[in-house]
């Protein structure tokens, strides 16, 4: 059994609504119920849920981009303190790479592709021939030689490839995707999914994929975590959960999916 690379214990996050009057107590507008999650090295976990389920909130917490209200996230055995400075969190940033949902918002429109993809190398102070690595990684995602171009010159699918290149340039151990395919066309989706799978296997990365699309998760993830209303309602091996759902919500979700 391989080691545990990421673990969440009793992780919760409460969001408080802004006060309307100075004396009113701030009410909780959304809460992520305590989540326990264990991810083993080399595995791929899918976090499924619809809007408002808390899946993106959970993803941010696992990435150390947000602080849990309670509970602990551990990566590689080290506890993550999301409130620490960027310098102190370098080890975490090095270990993880992320691809976000919106291909039109995740790339800085004023930077060229080369700078965008190379940024993690620069920020994390990684040695070696950075330009060479950027070239390598862009070629790997199917966009060789585009370093001088700007994001607006590319389509949605191509931008996600660039985002993927950025996510793996620093050779992270864990790749996290927050709905990376949702904004893409069906054809493009299949291509990117393929690419993701290939890269993951080649580099031996652990994958955590947040999605509302069960088809995508089924194709890529060994394990699945189902969320709704801020709670994890079911988790387990993908085949098991999708074939024999136990929780009412999972059943409802599966029944609603249009199939051919």
């Amino acid at each position, binding site marked *: 059994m391989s080691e545990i690379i990421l673990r969440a214990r009793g992780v919760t996050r409460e969001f408080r609504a802004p006060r309307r009057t100075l004396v009113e107590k701030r009410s909780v507008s959304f809460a992520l119920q305590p989540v326990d999650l264990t991810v083993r090295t080399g595995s791929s976990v899918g976090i499924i849920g619809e809007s408002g389920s808390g899946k993106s909130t959970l993803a941010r917490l696992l990435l150390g981009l947000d602080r849990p209200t309670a509970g602990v996230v551990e990566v590689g055995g080290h506890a993550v303190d999301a409130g620490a400075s960027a310098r102190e969190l370098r080890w975490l940033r090095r270990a993880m790479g992320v691809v976000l949902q919106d291909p039109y918002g995740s790339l800085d429109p004023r930077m060229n592709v080369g700078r965008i993809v190379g940024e993690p190398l620069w920020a994390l102070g990684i040695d070696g021939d950075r330009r060479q690595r950027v070239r390598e990684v862009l070629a790997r995602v199917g966009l060789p030689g585009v370093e001088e171009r700007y994001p607006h010159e590319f389509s949605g699918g191509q931008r996600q490839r660039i985002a993927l290149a950025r996510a793996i340039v620093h050779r992270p151990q864990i790749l996290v995707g927050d709905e990376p395919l949702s904004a893409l*066309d069906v054809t493009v989706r299949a291509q990117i999914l393929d690419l993701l799978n290939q890269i993951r296997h080649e580099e031996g990365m652990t994958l955590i994929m947040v999605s509302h*699309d*069960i088809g995508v998760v089924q194709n890529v993830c060994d394990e699945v975590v189902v969320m709704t209303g801020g709670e994890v309602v079911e988790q387990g091996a993908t085949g098991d959960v*999708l074939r024999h759902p136990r929780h009412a919500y999972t059943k409802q*979700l599966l029944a609603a*999916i*249009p199939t*051919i």
Partner: protein
Amino acid sequence: MSLIVEGLTVEIDGTRVVDGVSFEVPSGGRVGIIGESGSGKSLTALAIMGLLPDGAVARGSIRWEGRELVGLSERERAPIRGREMAMIFQEPQTALNPIRRVGAQIVEAARIHHGLRGHRAAQLATELARDVGLPSPETIVSAYPHQLSGGQRQRVGIAAALAGQPSLIVADEPTTALDVTVQKGILDLLAGLVAGRDASLLFITHDLAVLAQIATHALVLDSGSVVESGEVDRLLSAPEHPVTRGLLRDAKATLWRPEGSS
């Protein structure tokens, strides 16, 4: 109550983005248009509704109830729009006016085309809200769009489309921006409403699985032209054109397979 489109072309700045599209939507029929982004499917819908953007020119023939629509002026078109044919848009977020209550937006078409006012308009709003399955219809009509969820907003969009009592509903990717469970509700709703009101439906989507749920016949568009058309069941089981086959293959690659089906 039928729509016959023949040789429709749409040009924008000299580029032909819809090229010789022909199809029919019989009365009571549910026809789908499927294609990727850029295939011209939305523009076809906009051309039928007379809502093409400035600079776009439509040519060919769109016959609605025997009347030729291509070449009509805006003044001649406006009475048809909303009253005989209505459109449902993709983004529930932006299709509604954020500073008006939803009830008012629902009955707008009825007010303009049928002169409905005051109490009767309010009644219609509540009725339609109920028809589309919105919770607490009497109170929800006084809500503002931002107070509703995405699915609820889309239902409001559907209610608004129905208010003028159209015979043709053109739905442009109405469920693309919605969650799966919500989507199912909307598709069921649309199918039920179209049957109940004896209206026809033209449904546009890029998702084959969604198409399979709602349309009986469909045409496949690629770069502005129809590459294949026919019954949806046949398209899914025995597609002929490479584009259709490609769409099917890609859909299956990312589709959830309940165990036991291929």
